[in-house]
């Protein structure tokens, strides 16, 4: 996205629309909306250059609440629509807001392939581990055994890990954050927005109506420091209320160690978000409560050409090689003959 014109300075409230926000009171979505507005204002993205595309679900109401060109589409298809928008006009800042059902179930295919192509869009996946809008069925991220309306005896679906999927799909930017940790959320949104290529963020989002407390283990005051480890580039993985624990690699296996007694920070796993090889990022994406603290932050941030840039390059090189398209010679291509 380019922004050459001089803009009046925008404030977060300038990104508000005249629409009533219709999420349930106490829903985690509110916090995400507030942080998004802040980040947009901070980056000075002109509202007219912002396109927010969504599918179907609670999270997908997002476009109504952001002053932008908003497209509330059909279930699962936001990534595909956003791809078309970005290819049609690469100057635009394109965001996709989706959920665990919309993005990973019905829209799973588009998610994989958009990420693989590295179309320059920012994807916010609100993971609340439940279908909220349809009133409480288990989703592809609900844990095994989860009792919901559609799984009264407990879910028998093995859940998937969104970040593992994104990394497997060759993502160039992968991050995780939590709705209630607003500072971290803002930081991650900003990093994602600045990244050129598909930025994929999983946001743990509390659905207080159908799945309240699903992320209590990383948000609860007494437990969150024990169950989450915040990633920083080039820094060791340290966590715990007293920052006395760390993650050490034992072969390919991350293990929890206590600092002291001969174990120093230098023995710990150092995070490298820029590693070309996605193995470390993948390994981090597998760390899961209750076996390990769950990593938060930027797992992976590498550079690769974007789909739309490569496409525009081809258009340019075709123009160079063949000249600007001319209808007359197009019509007459191949063998022609004249009848008098």
């Amino acid at each position, binding site marked *: 996205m380019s922004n050459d014109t001089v803009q009046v300075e925008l404030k977060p409230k300038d990104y508000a629309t005249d629409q009533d926000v219709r999420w349930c009171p106490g829903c985690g979505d509110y916090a995400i909306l507030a942080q998004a507005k802040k980040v947009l204002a901070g980056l000075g993205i002109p509202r007219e250059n912002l396109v927010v595309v969504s599918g179907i679900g609670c999270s997908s109401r997002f476009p109504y609440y952001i002053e932008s*060109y908003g497209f509330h589409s059909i279930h699962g298809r936001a990534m*595909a629509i956003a*791809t078309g928008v970005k*290819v049609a006009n690469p100057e635009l800042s394109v965001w996709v807001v989706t959920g665990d059902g919309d993005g990973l179930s019905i829209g799973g295919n588009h998610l994989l392939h958009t990420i693989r192509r590295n179309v320059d869009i920012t994807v916010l996946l609100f993971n609340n581990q439940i279908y909220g809008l349809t009133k409480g069925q288990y989703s592809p991220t609900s844990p095994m055994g989860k009792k919901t309306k559609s799984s009264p005896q407990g879910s028998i679906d093995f859940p998937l890990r969104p970040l593992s999927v994104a990394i497997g799909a060759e993502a160039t930017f992968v991050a995780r954050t939590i709705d209630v940790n607003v500072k971290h959320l803002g930081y991650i949104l900003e990093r994602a927005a600045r990244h050129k290529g598909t930025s994929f963020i999983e946001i743990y989002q509390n659905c207080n109506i159908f799945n309240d407390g699903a992320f209590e283990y990383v948000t609860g005051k007494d437990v969150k420091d024990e169950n989450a480890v915040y990633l920083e580039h080039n820094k060791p993985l340290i966590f715990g209320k007293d920052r006395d624990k760390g993650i050490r690699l034992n072969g390919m296996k991350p293990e929890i160690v206590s600092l002291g007694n001969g174990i120093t920070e230098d023995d710990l796993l150092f995070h490298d978000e820029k590693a070309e090889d996605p193995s470390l990022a993948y390994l981090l994406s597998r760390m899961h409560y209750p076996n390990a603290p769950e990593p938060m932050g930027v797992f992976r941030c590498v550079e690769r050409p974007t789909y739309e840039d490569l496409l525009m390059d081809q*258009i340019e090189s075709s123009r160079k090689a063949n000249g600007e*398209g001319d209808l007359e010679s*197009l019509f007459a291509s191949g063998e022609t003959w*004249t009848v008098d």
Partner: protein
Amino acid sequence: MVVSTQTDGKSVRQVKVIETSQVTVRFCGDSGDGMQLAGTQMTTASAIFGNDVSTFPDFPAEIRAPAGSLAGVSGFQLNFSSHLLRTPGDRVTALIAMNPAALKTNIADLEPGGILVVNDDAFSKTNLAKAGYDENPLDAAGMSQFKLFRIPIDKLNAKVCESTGLTGRAVSRCRNFFALGLVYWLYGRPMDPTLRWIESKFGGKPVVAEANTLALKGGYYFGETAEMFPVRYVVPKADIPPGRYRRISGNVATALGLITAARLAGKPLFYGSYPITPASDILHELARYKNFDVRTFQAEDEISAICSTLGAAYTGNFAVTGTSGPGIALKSEAIGLAVMTELPLVIVCVQRGGPSTGLPTKTEQADLNQALFGRNGECPVCILAPATPGECFDMAIESFRIATEYMVPVIMLTDGYLANGAEPWRIPDVASLPKIEVKHPAASENGFLPYARDAKLARPWALPGTPGLQHRIGGLEKADGDGNVCYDPENHEHMIHTRQKKVEGIAETIPPTEMFGDDSGELLVVGWGSTYGAITSAVERCRAKGMDVSSIHIRYLYPMPKDIGAILKRFKKVMVPEMNLGQLVQLLRAKFLVDAKGLNKVQGKPFMISDIERGIEDTLNGKAI
């Protein structure tokens, strides 16, 4: 009949030359035998010679079916004449069969007394067995009804190519050109266009160019010198409107039309598509023309193909997606979204045999109902159907004209027969093409109504990036005017009617229906799509025999031209030939309360002229059809 003297420099022999007005040749052989190439070469040569031509290829569904098998037979039919042509021909005048399997699958279409040229070398025990023959059919008594020429094409071809030093596979690859050369001699076709083609194609490989040249000339001179051919045929030039021509298939014409529409409007063209037979050639063709700012996107699936296209339409590109029947089924929900968001979108459906995977390489017209009704809710979509390969060009432009003028999705229905069939196309003068004027609202500070409407009920096409026009669209019902989500019952009904009225209003800007024959009378034949050639030719023949029959061809299926109802009522009987079980006929009966009867064929093959002639005769004689 003319008798002329032919000489090859050594011997002189007398060859009878018979003038005829029309010839239908079919080349058939293994997929790897280069039958499509032989056919297209002869088409060009015939067109350059001055005949009218019409062609239709017949591909096997399997890409690499076992060599010599029935499933692997590929055919190409070419009709050329001294009068104007509308179809690739009913019965075959000359069949060139490169192996027993090709003979078996095609012999039924050869007319009695027709010419049958076979590659005798390919009629080996193994090949006969692969085709399921116990005995060599060439020795059978039934063959006497044809003019059979058993030619050892493999051996003769190897001989003429000997000097190149090529052997084995490289030589046998030229045998199609040996056969072609022979047919060129038989019908007095000029070799120059093909020799030029060989030069440009194999220029970088002189040995291959040499071998193909030798094969072509070898076949030609074989015809000239071998005593076995007592007769040659000439088809005089046709009286064709003057101009510059090229050969065009429906898929290529569609691609060129799409590019042209975007150019005429000064817009990039976005084509989102997922590979599917028989539509993929549109994608291939468009991908070659990036210098026209054509942005092709090969999507991960049909749904992504149309959704990306919708995103591009929203953003201001001329956006089109192409597919076939199974793809339309997957795109249905997104077509509904295009209707709801009122965005200009073109959807090309190259119909093939269905249902389900059906007959991917064969033709059918059975997606009309799907195009009309295959969506949830009240979801009207404009549907156009070109009648000839060349018309695909004009209708692609017309599709974008309507899509952008009315802010609606438009489905253009072609089919495998149009897509792969080819005809000469008079190259249009660029200056004479219709302009497409596209308007976008300018930046504003005083608010914006995304669902305000103009006289045609179209809403504004506001482009992302325009300051002050930020707005939200989506699949939920909208309040007219401000476009906010609205669950109000009256508004919903009003919007349903508005979308319907808007699409029906397209009838105001489409041309009136052309009559073929008389304005009123006993029988009216009504067609749509690729049946045009067969219907019009049949009606022409029947009229020449004094029958009271006329025809119309509906190119705008929804909404229909305003005059259709009145035209139908001016005829006592109405017959509707379709390659389905009667989809248009059902519509006509429901809409206009006429007792129209269907003439239906669902064999994955186009109508023959004679099929329709028979239908006309039976209808006029009061027989059930």
